[in-house]
């Protein structure tokens, strides 16, 4: 079971030099602790794939995947695909969020209009966005526009939904107090409702952007001729499973970097700082 917390009393008797050395080594230890599980996983995978004797089509070995990674990188295919995917995702996610926030801001002015819009928005959020893909392809044919529209849509509705629910969550007392103190409608929206909804909006964007990143894979598989999603699916058709795995790993790494380096810090800087972690879903 979990150990007692005060396990390493001995550390305090180690003296200053040891402690300083430990402090310097802390990041190294952290990285080691982070990477060790992956090293072990890759080792086990290599042994299992070699011993099982399956072809690299069914069960590629890590060395196959590494070779494919090197090959795709050397030919410039992988960097180009990553750039393509990130471009579509960035444009789609930012414009989707902009439209969602803009529309939400307008709707902040009228409560009846919000009451009217919310069920529709809820419904659009409920439609698993990929269900639109067949229709989107009918609209835009195959290509960049179809993928972009898919991403745009996927981000727009969670953001809009969170603006609206965020506004509803602002306590009535606050609204009335501000109104009583003589604020007009514009001031109420600008100073109370919109800032009040902001943490929820940030969360909505993070969720929407996450869904959009997943939707990107399928949209690219269907409608694009490049991109990480295209790589993942195209390689299955050509029987190069190790390339599929390269795509999956790259996809995971990109999202981790984007999420931890950009989205999470934004959330921490807004939602958590204002002590509103309740809105994390």
């Amino acid at each position, binding site marked *: 079971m979990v150990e007692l917390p005060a396990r390493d009393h001995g550390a305090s008797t180690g003296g200053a030099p040891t402690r300083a050395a430990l402090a310097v080594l802390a990041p190294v230890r952290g990285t080691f602790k982070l990477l060790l599980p992956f090293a072990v996983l890759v080792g086990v995978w290599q042994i299992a794939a070699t011993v099982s004797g399956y072809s690299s089509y069914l069960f590629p070995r890590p060395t196959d995947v590494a070779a494919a990674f090197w090959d795709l990188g050397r030919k410039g295919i992988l960097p180009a695909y990553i750039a393509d995917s990130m471009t579509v995702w960035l444009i789609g996610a930012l414009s989707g969020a902009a439209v969602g926030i803009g529309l939400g801001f307008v709707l902040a002015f009228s409560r009846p209009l919000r009451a009217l819009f919310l069920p529709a928005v809820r419904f659009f959020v409920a439609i698993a966005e990929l269900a639109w893909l067949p*229709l989107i392809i009918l609209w835009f044919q195959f290509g960049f526009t179809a993928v972009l529209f898919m991403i745009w849509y996927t981000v727009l509705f969670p953001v809009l939904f969170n603006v609206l629910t965020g506004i509803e969550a602002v306590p009535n007392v606050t609204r009335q107090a501000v109104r009583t103190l003589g604020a007009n409608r514009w001031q109420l929206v600008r100073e109370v409702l919109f800032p009040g909804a902001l943490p929820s909006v940030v969360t909505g964007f993070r969720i929407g952007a996450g869904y959009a990143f997943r939707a990107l894979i399928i949209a690219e598989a269907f409608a694009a001729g490049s991109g990480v999603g295209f790589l993942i699916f195209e390689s299955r058709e050509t029987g190069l499973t190790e390339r599929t795995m390269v795509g999956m790993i790259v996809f995971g790494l990109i999202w981790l970097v984007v999420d931890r380096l950009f989205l999470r810090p934004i959330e921490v800087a807004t939602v958590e700082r204002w002590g509103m972690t309740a809105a994390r879903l």
Partner: protein
Amino acid sequence: MSPLTRSRGGRLTARALKWLRGARPVGLLTLALVVLAWWLLDRFADIPPFKLPSVGAVATSLRELASSGELFDAMAASLQRLALGFLIGSSLGVAVGLLLASSKHLMEFIRPLVVFFQVIAGIAWIPLAIVWFGLGSGPVIFVVANAVFFIVLFNMLAGIQSIPSVLLASTRTLGAGRLRVIREVVLPGALTHLLVGLELSMGLAWRALVAAELIVATDGLGFLTLQASARFDAATVVAGIIVIGATWLVMHRVLLVPLHARTVERWGMTRPIVD
């Protein structure tokens, strides 16, 4: 603006609100407006029917799909896969989570792996699932189970780590065995996180299901929609989209909302940590 007019404006808004609430299913009014907008667009903008089917065509298509039984077959196929995948994924997730709970070192070791796999869970596995399971239900169930497993496991670990170690230590000191600690402390302690994980994974599982059905299935709602688009039958595509949205809304209402209200909210624990 004088106070008088403002109050009148306020009264008007209040009356409008009351009226809106009186028309209890506001959703119906919204629906009527959406249909009206759609009808107007179709009537006055010159959009070919394979891009924007008319309201009537979609209604006919829905009726035909329902009366031929095609719709319910597809829905049954999809829901069956979802249920099976969800059951497999969540039970495995809980089991592995509890297993890991017995060792802090093991948990710290596994955590980075779970974080990574949670990120790529679901949709990205579809091509591999096809390689391993062929076409049909197999890969779809695998993808759903995969999505649920990693998200549930991730939340289980977060839940277990949120249990104050004092509780665990004191239970141990008072003579509880491993199993007893798991049953009486770990499981209840991690329950809120687990429930949130289940809820969250349902949303992702549903999306993974639709995506997988678009690509590998031979029946189900996603397949129905894609097949219609290959025939340029936009009416059936839109009908499929509507059914997919409505199915999720009903599931959400019937399953997830009551579950959330009866557990997480009732216990006053609406502070889930979802990563």
